[in-house]
């Protein structure tokens, strides 16, 4: 479902003496439907960078990144937007939403975007928020006023609302308490069971061991010293 082939990436900082920071060279990985692959490597090794490249958020210098039938590296902006709407989900640690929009609507948005009926989307959003222990009295408020942990759980509810065939999870369990962590891990398990291909970054080893079928050490993609 997700196939990374000979991918290279570097950052050029034009305003800081044009420093070129090499990140990775000839990265290769494949994720099959129903499989969860954990990215490992020390901080700064390029785990999030690789994930953002797959999402089309960062450009890729060379290589090919296939998600379904689409090569993200050469795709047009609107093809990537379609891919993100229908096929590829991304859950980051941080919630980014329009001010003043109620939590329930924030969670419903991805489902409405793929054409789900309003009442079905609402029912699913309620179920997810309940499972993630967001008190019902908060649902009509904007999540921007919530605590960090609550925002993160709203973000997870939103990320799992539509059943994407492929998902990218950037530390979804960081800073959650034990009960909520278990809920998130069970959501990941269910996504795998319905055939989603998942790439995840988990700093928590126990969590990683519980849901990941394989691990890939991103630091092996680092450019070899010349």
């Amino acid at each position, binding site marked *: 479902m997700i196939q990374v082939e000979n991918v290279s990436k570097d950052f*050029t900082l*034009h305003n800081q003496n044009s420093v070129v920071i090499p990140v990775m060279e000839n990265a290769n990985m494949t994720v099959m439907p129903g499989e969860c692959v954990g990215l490992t490597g020390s901080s700064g090794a390029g785990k999030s960078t690789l994930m953002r490249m797959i999402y*089309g*958020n*960062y450009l890729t210098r060379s290589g090919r990144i296939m998600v379904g039938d689409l090569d993200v590296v050469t795709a047009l902006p*609107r093809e*990537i937007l379609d891919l993100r709407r229908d096929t590829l989900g991304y859950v980051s640690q941080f919630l980014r939403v*329009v001010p003043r929009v109620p939590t329930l609507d924030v969670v419903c948005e991805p489902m409405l975007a793929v054409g789900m009926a309003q009442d079905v989307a609402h029912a699913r959003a309620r179920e997810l928020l309940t499972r993630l222990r967001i008190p019902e009295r908060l649902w009509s408020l904007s999540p921007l006023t919530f605590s960090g942990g609550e925002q993160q759980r709203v973000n997870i509810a939103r990320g799992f609302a539509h059943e994407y065939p492929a998902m990218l999870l950037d530390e979804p369990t960081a800073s959650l308490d034990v009960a909520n962590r278990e809920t998130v891990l069970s959501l990941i398990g269910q996504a795998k069971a319905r055939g989603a291909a998942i790439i995840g970054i988990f700093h928590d080893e126990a969590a990683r061991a519980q849901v990941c079928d394989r691990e890939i050490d991103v630091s092996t993609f680092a450019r070899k010293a010349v």
Partner: protein
Amino acid sequence: MTPLLQVSGISKYYDTRLGCRDVSFDLYPGEVLGIVGESGSGKSTLLNCLAGHQEPDTGKVVFDTRADGPKDTVTMSEPERRMLSRTDWAFVHQNPRDGLRMGVSAGGNVGERLMAVGARHYGNIRAAAIDWLDKVEISQDRTDDRPSQFSGGMQQRLQIARNLVTGPRLIFMDEPTGGLDVSVQARLLDLLRGLVRELGLSAIVVTHDLAVVRLLADRLMVMKDGQVIEKGLTDQVLDDPQHAYTQLLVSSVLQV
């Protein structure tokens, strides 16, 4: 899918000074394109050329008209272009005074655009005007007040109502939130986003505010010295900028 707007090779010089040079892009139905750049980078010149307010020196602006399909608006006749700008196009000015008639009531401002496309029944016009004032959160009892009695944010919302009442398919916006304080800005952005999504509108938004484009635009073009130096998905351009100027622009935003 046919692009709603196909722009190719637009250049505009003021005497020997460069306005904008060789700008090309396609805009598809439902897409929102942001154009950012500092003042003097040519973004307003470009917008005016696209909207038919200025004539470009070279290039084509092909719009997919309802009746005849794709047609170059630069070479079409003046009446045809005026008709487009009253029906399928809308232009939201930075200063609401440029887009409103300050001496005519709020309801009249909205109704005028309907009359310009042939509506004549007073009751229907007034009902449509009130409906749109409600959509932009202006209460019904202000219908007969003049815009000069409105606050800046209300004037801007009135301008949006006036523009959208005829059901345009493409909106040009020049700094739509410029000069408004942040709380009013958030409300206006919320409104614009909702309208764009509900009505499936395409929009071209010129601004220097990167937070505004991140919320509103699907795609982004960065202009400097009259040229497009970088373009792509909005979040990609903002999070992984390639050009030195874009990197400077993104890294210059103050964190709140």
